[in-house]
């Protein structure tokens, strides 16, 4: 295979991997503090992407045309709105069910995901159809043989890396991060140390949901199109990535995200049958990996949660 073409595939894989990793980090954060899987995470991403799109439409109506300004406002609005939504979900749906069987938490978040997805489909103007997403990043590109390096992809990748580094810094170097890690490790001890458990849980959910919104905007910018179903797909993929990496570990989630994207790219390039089967292949691989390593590639340091 030509080196340029290979580089192209690697670039596409990296873009996908970045989105998956951002979603997977959210799953890992939630699982860390509350030991729950929030299946509505993917649909929060959808709502985030649509919130950004609505903001864009609103800004256009106000007559603002600077694409950088628009992008920043869209990101801020979507991230903050989803952070708030995440807190509401945690406070009123997830936390009340803490003492109930795990199945109930699972179902309530699955159903909440359906509510969000269907709300977008039914109540966003023509939400059932795919919506074009504005291309707000500069479209310049450099041709290197077969490889077409697009500036917007580079910018998105850089932004993604910065966000992940930022999260990493927040978790490992700040007091808030220390509190989150303490709650994740041992809720009761954390409480006795004077950590406000509810507040930390809410902040974590806000953080994870904000990340989802960011990933949603990124998804829109990358494909230049969003629809109400992206969240379900990205949610399952992100969760699979988090599990492949090992739930509860941030590094695992990132690794899992890129690994999954790699598998998908390999599936598109190397497999003999049509690329229409790429999702069938990807999900089959998820199922196979779950069978092989039910608790992920990187095991948790404290394995009692599994």
């Amino acid at each position, binding site marked *: 295979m030509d080196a340029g073409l290979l580089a192209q595939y690697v670039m596409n894989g990296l873009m996908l991997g970045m989105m998956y990793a951002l979603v997977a980090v959210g799953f890992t954060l939630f699982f860390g503090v509350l030991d729950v899987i929030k299946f509505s995470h993917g649909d929060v991403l959808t709502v985030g992407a649509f919130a950004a799109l609505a903001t864009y439409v609103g800004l256009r109506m106000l007559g603002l045309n600077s694409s950088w300004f628009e992008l920043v406002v869209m990101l801020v609005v979507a991230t903050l709105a989803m952070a708030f939504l995440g807190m509401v979900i945690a406070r009123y749906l997830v936390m009340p069910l803490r003492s109930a069987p795990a199945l109930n938490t699972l179902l309530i978040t*699955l159903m909440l995901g359906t509510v969000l997805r269907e709300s977008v489909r039914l109540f966003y103007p023509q939400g059932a159809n795919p919506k074009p997403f504005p291309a707000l990043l500069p479209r310049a590109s450099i041709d290197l043989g077969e490889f077409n390096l697009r500036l917007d992809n580079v910018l998105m990748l850089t932004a993604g890396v910065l966000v992940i580094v930022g999260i990493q810094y927040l978790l490992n170097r700040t007091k808030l991060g220390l509190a989150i890690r303490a709650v994740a490790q041992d809720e009761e001890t954390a409480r006795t140390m004077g950590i406000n458990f509810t507040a930390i849980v809410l902040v974590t959910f806000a953080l994870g949901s904000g990340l989802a919104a960011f990933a949603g905007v990124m998804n829109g910018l990358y494909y230049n199109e969003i629809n109400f179903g992206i969240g379900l797909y990205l949610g399952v993929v992100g969760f699979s990535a988090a599990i492949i990496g090992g739930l509860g570990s941030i590094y695992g989630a990132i690794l899992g995200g890129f690994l999954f994207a790699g598998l998908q790219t390999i599936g598109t390039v190397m497999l003999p049958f049509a690329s229409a089967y790429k999702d069938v292949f990807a*999900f089959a691989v998820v199922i196979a990996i779950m069978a092989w390593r*039910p608790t992920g590639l990187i095991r948790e340091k404290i394995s009692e949660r599994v």
Partner: protein
Amino acid sequence: MAEKGHTTVWPGIAGLAIATGYLIAMLGAEKQNLIIILLAAGIVAVLAAGWLGLLETVSASFVEHEDALAACAIGAACAVAAVFHDNHFVLLLVITVLLYSVATLGLNVQFGYAGVLNFAGASFFGIGAYTSAVLSAYTSVPHLLVLLIGGLLAAFAGSLLLLPVLRTRGHYAAVVTIAFALLFKTFLEVNDVLGGPQGMQVKGMRILGWSFNDNIEIGKILLSFYMNYFVLSLLLLVGAFVLVRRLERSWIGLNLDALRLDETAAGCFGLDIVRWKITAFLIGNFLIGIAGALFGIVGGFVAPNNYTFADSLILVSILLLGGIGNPWGLMVATIIVVVLPEKLQTIQEYRFLLYALMVIAVLLFRPEGLLPRPVRRYFPGWRP
């Protein structure tokens, strides 16, 4: 109620008769206003009956005289069908209720007894339906056998998931089945042999030369051809119900309950966890597959969009609404979930949203469902 001594069979029969009458009125109503009034009246009546303690009497009667009342329920279903003997649409609705009940009974074995999660119910239903489509299009396998093969294939497809489902627990197992549901729908959409997104036609059923797709004339009475399918579906439901009920009462059911409540403890008492999980998963998928195979034939048409993840969630909503583990509750919930959006055309478009909200409300305020599963009775009719 229970400590006051034996309840007679009559409250149960009365309750069943009222419910049947109400159902007939509901199915027969055409005007939207009338349907809304009926619906409101029904809710008020149930709340009032609950407040007066009548519901407890009825349910006690059901517990005491289950066999007699089950026979009456079959009679009630036949009565509903007899009233609408020439109405295609209503009969199709009744058949849908019956077959969805069979499918949720299968799901009930998995969720309710063994605690094995399955969020791909609609996919296994679809495997059954596509089996009947393919077999009736390309082969001349006898149609009753097609149903059986549909069930077996669904069970077989389920067995491909067995390894990951067995090795994982809780959330992880859920993801395996969700991934399968998405995989299955994508697969149907891109596979040209199976008709792609447009789906396939399914031929009508024919048993021993008796064509199921012809209307029946007895003297001057014309019966809808759906009557054939109604009888078959009812037989299927009765069979599935008896199977599930016996399963629950047997030692297998006891093992499954132990497994669900505490896997580790069950293992310590020498139960073969893997074996019982496999049993429950396969039996459940088999039932779902048979129901799907017949549903495919009845509908005459299969398409990927009928077997999506959202449809799987509807099956789970029925289970949860009815009260996990209670077959009677399931049927009540199936009637509500299937009939209501068909009759109330205004909510048809919003049905996924409404079901999801309904399940969230049930989980928050009444997690045990509308008709919770009663405590296991080791000996029918025995009381302390």
